[in-house]
């Protein structure tokens, strides 16, 4: 067992294998962040290192390594505009991580690789903190630690897997202390601003709606938000989650007025948005009976979602004149906020500037304009009558609801209304508002989500990206903003049931996600599993991921009282850490003698016999016991003798120590007795 070689600082083969496995595992969650060529380079490094491991290859020469680095950096620079983004930094780190494999000859190099691995695996949680991601993180840690441990372990006589077992053991042992630190270490506020993950590629409601945009969202089963209600849940017809209000149209797409737009038109910013709770002169707040908490996933935009129009600002959020809430800055983390719902009751006419904003139209689409004006005259100037007329038109003229409408260039609204007659909610809402405005009725497109999945046991509604929807509000004097949903005229099941039903089973719903569990809601077992997992995920998000400064303070106040909280917190932290460490050291340093282990095994053996009906008699030694069993219980004889022989040999042989292997073998023999 002694090594006669001098201490060498090479890298053991075990360690290389685990480093390669770790590499692949760590990079897997980043696959959508990294540009494709970088993934190729990473894979190349791993394969090359593997061939080296098999002894079928040579170390890449310096020129090749430099070429690869240049290629990687070139790719990174070309791929990211602007350069200084989180994705850029993660890519640089990841590519360094993989290329280092090609010059990893000494233990120190390998250690650098492991450390970068810890860093890279942590960057992946900046993009997702789901339960799955956390579990994956833990697995990556086991492998990384196995690799690091392998660096210091000689592998002459130890199997490759033993490192993994050790890694797992270390991770499990570190978890309790990690939890203590997680709960008790004081959380600081962000120290400086950092580049945030890029959300432009992820799906979500945007503030610019060209026909077809929302159809794209129907391909995503990603969670948009959850709303947990305090008491009653709103009925299906009221589940309109308002997020964005688009009051500008440029002929192609609808978009929100920005403050700069408004200022250029001579409208004061304070007119447009307010952050106090004080009421505005032309509407009143009236409670609508819904009190709920929203867990909004990160969107990268400042818009907040509310059930129906918002009438008052909540917390430190802004209330806009479009009856929606907005946070001060883009949301890069999940946002949790409560809404004590109130509904605006309009007591006065629309202010002039707002009316002007909501009737303006660009040139074009003459037929839609003409039709709208004619209908308005026929309906005697009643906006609601006109609205009903348009709804009826959609209903009766063979309009179809589809995710893949034909492309409508040029006079898009005319083409949609009078020739193509098929489209998605954005088409219907856009055309509807266009016609209302043509007739001089203030109208706007509202975008957000509609419906959602009910989770009655949690009194929760869970809304996914494919619930994204667009509808319409028109101003009616004396009533205020009234909601119309033209899609309702074409595909009522979209609102009353869900999108999947509205489209039929092969209507393109989640077509790009064949593995999405949501597709298989009809399969009861899979659906139960999905609901269970989603519940778990919700608890995980609520308890662990949302455990930030405020939650920590609240929890600690509950535990420790309010005065001198920080001192108590730090004292508690120190005490618990020392207790855990002390306990662990007692456990670890407990030098259990193997002779004792033998005695324990023999006790277990006797216990087993007792259960089988054999009682140890006074003064009976091992061998006499075995002999007695031979006559009394011949069916046990073989296995009992096998155990006793080996036990006696261990116990009474002249060697002073008992091998680990002997104990294992005895345990096996013990388990054979039944």
């Amino acid at each position, binding site marked *: 067992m002694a090594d006669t070689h001098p201490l060498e600082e090479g890298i053991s083969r075990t360690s290389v294998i685990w480093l390669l496995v770790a590499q692949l595992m760590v990079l897997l969650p980043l696959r959508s962040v990294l540009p494709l060529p970088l993934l190729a380079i990473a894979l190349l490094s791993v394969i090359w290192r593997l061939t080296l491991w098999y002894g079928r290859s040579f170390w890449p020469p310096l020129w090749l390594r430099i070429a690869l680095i240049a290629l990687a950096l070139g790719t990174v620079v070309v791929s990211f505009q602007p350069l200084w983004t989180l994705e850029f930094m993660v890519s640089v780190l990841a590519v360094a991580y993989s290329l280092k494999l090609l010059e990893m000859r000494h233990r120190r190099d390998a250690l650098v690789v492991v450390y970068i691995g810890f860093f890279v695996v*942590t960057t992946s949680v900046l993009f997702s903190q789901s339960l799955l991601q956390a579990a994956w993180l833990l697995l990556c840690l086991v492998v990384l630690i196995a690799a690091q441990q392998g660096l210091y372990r000689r592998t002459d006589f130890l199997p490759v897997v033993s490192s993994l077992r050790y890694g797992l053991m270390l991770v499990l042992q570190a978890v309790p202390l990690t939890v203590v630190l997680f709960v008790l270490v004081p959380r600081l506020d962000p120290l400086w601003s950092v580049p945030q993950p890029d959300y432009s590629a992820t799906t979500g409601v945007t503030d610019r709606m060209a026909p077809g945009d929302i159809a794209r969202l129907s391909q995503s089963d990603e969670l948009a938000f959850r709303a947990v209600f305090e008491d009653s849940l709103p009925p299906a017809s009221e589940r309109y989650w308002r997020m964005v209000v688009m009051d500008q149209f440029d002929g192609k797409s609808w978009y929100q007025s920005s403050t700069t737009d408004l200022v250029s038109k001579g409208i004061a910013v304070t007119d447009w948005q307010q952050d106090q709770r004080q009421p505005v002169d032309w509407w009143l707040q009236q409670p609508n009976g819904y009190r709920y908490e929203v867990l909004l996933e990160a969107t990268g935009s400042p818009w907040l979602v509310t059930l129906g129009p918002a009438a008052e600002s909540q917390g430190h959020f802004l209330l806009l004149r479009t009856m929606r809430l907005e946070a001060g800055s883009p949301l890069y983390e999940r946002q949790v906020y409560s809404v004590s719902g109130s509904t605006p009751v309009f007591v006065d006419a629309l202010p002039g500037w707002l009316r002007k904003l909501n009737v303006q139209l660009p040139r074009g689409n003459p037929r839609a304009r003409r039709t709208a004006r004619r209908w308005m005259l026929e309906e005697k100037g009643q906006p609601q009558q006109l609205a009903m007329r348009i709804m009826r038109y959609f209903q009766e003229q063979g309009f179809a609801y589809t995710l893949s409408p034909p492309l409508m260039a040029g006079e898009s609204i005319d083409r949609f209304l009078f020739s193509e007659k098929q489209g998605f909610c954005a088409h219907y809402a856009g055309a509807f508002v266009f016609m209302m405005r043509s007739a001089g009725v203030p109208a706007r497109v509202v975008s957000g989500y509609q419906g959602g999945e009910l989770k009655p046991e949690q009194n929760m509604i869970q809304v996914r990206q494919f619930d994204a929807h667009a509808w319409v509000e028109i101003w009616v004097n004396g009533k205020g903003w009234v909601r119309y949903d033209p899609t309702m005229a074409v595909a009522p099941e979209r609102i009353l049931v869900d999108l999947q039903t509205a489209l039929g089973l092969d209507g393109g719903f989640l077509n790009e996600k064949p593995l999405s569990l949501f597709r298989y809601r009809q399969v009861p077992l899979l659906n139960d599993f999905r609901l269970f997992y989603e519940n778990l995920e919700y608890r995980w998000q609520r308890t662990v991921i949302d455990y930030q400064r405020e939650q920590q303070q609240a929890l600690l106040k509950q535990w420790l009282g309010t005065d001198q909280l920080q001192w108590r917190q730090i004292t508690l932290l120190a005490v618990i850490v020392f207790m855990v460490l002390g306990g662990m050291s007692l456990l670890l340093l407990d030098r259990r003698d193997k002779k004792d282990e033998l005695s324990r095994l023999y006790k277990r053996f006797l216990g087993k016999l007792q259960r089988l009906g054999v009682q140890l008699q006074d003064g009976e030694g091992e061998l006499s016991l075995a002999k007695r069993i031979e006559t009394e219980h011949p069916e046990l004889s073989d296995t009992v003798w096998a155990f006793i022989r080996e036990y006696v040999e261990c116990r009474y042989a002249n060697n002073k120590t008992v091998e680990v292997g002997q104990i294992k073998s005895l345990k096996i023999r013990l388990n054979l007795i039944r």
Partner: protein
Amino acid sequence: MAGFQSLRQKARQLILGNRAPARQVTLNQRRIYILPGIAGMVWLLVAFLLFLMAVNYANSLAFAMSFFMVSLFMLAILHTWRNLAGLTVRSLGGEPAHVGQPVRVKLEIDGHNRERIAIKVGWPDHENLNVDILNSTQIDLRITGQRRGWLSPGLLRIESLYPLGLCKTWSWLSLEAGVLVYPAIDDRQPLPLSQNANGTQAGATRLGQEEFAGVRRYQAGDSSGHVDWKGFARRHELNTKIFHQPVGLDCILSLNDTPGYELEDKLSVLTGWCLRCERQKQPYGLKLPGVMIHPGMGQRHLNECLQSLALFQIQTGT
């Protein structure tokens, strides 16, 4: 540098106290030291960077990751320490050798039934071995004796980085090697001319001339070259021929006969002479102040002489 080394040695002695070397030492809490290594410092730095990342992104999992690394670091202290705790090191001695020649010191390391991995054992400035110990293991450490007498290579160092290399744990053991180092061999000096009773010196030419003195019964260990094969052929009796130095030339090696002034040099010369006499089958005795070994021959006689030379004027600590 040498001064710095000895200073460190002194500091070590000061910290460890002057423990008497023992044949067997068990490592306990008082003897095991542990400090984070560079790898451990970098580990903590990575954990700190992750903490900063977590703070700036207000990201719970990044916090968890940073805390995990700190926890693992604390655990690594325990695990690394435990790798050494309770080890027993026993010296099993080794074959004597001369100053400047390598000696193999045999050590037994007993892990007391616990797996101990990648433990580096050795005396500083000598061969170090990296061993895994499942139960107990024996190792041979090659070491070069620098001074005659009982080999005292200083404190034995045992260290380990296992399992994660974050901390280095070590211990200094005052272990007795149990190996005797004979003086160096100086083979350049001619054998001294023994003095006759009448004071005339025997010439150098007589040196090595051996006179046949008869035969005696063969004893095990006698050189085959000295066996009286002719007699064996005649009488079937195995005898060994005995040669004698001429009377009065019985070689008593003494410090007084050696050239040079330094005691160590003189002892080296005497060592060389003893070995030469033994080789030439010339009975030799040794006379040192306080020591008198009567002329004789054979391995045991040689060992006795060499031991006397090795330990001459050295307090035997054992």
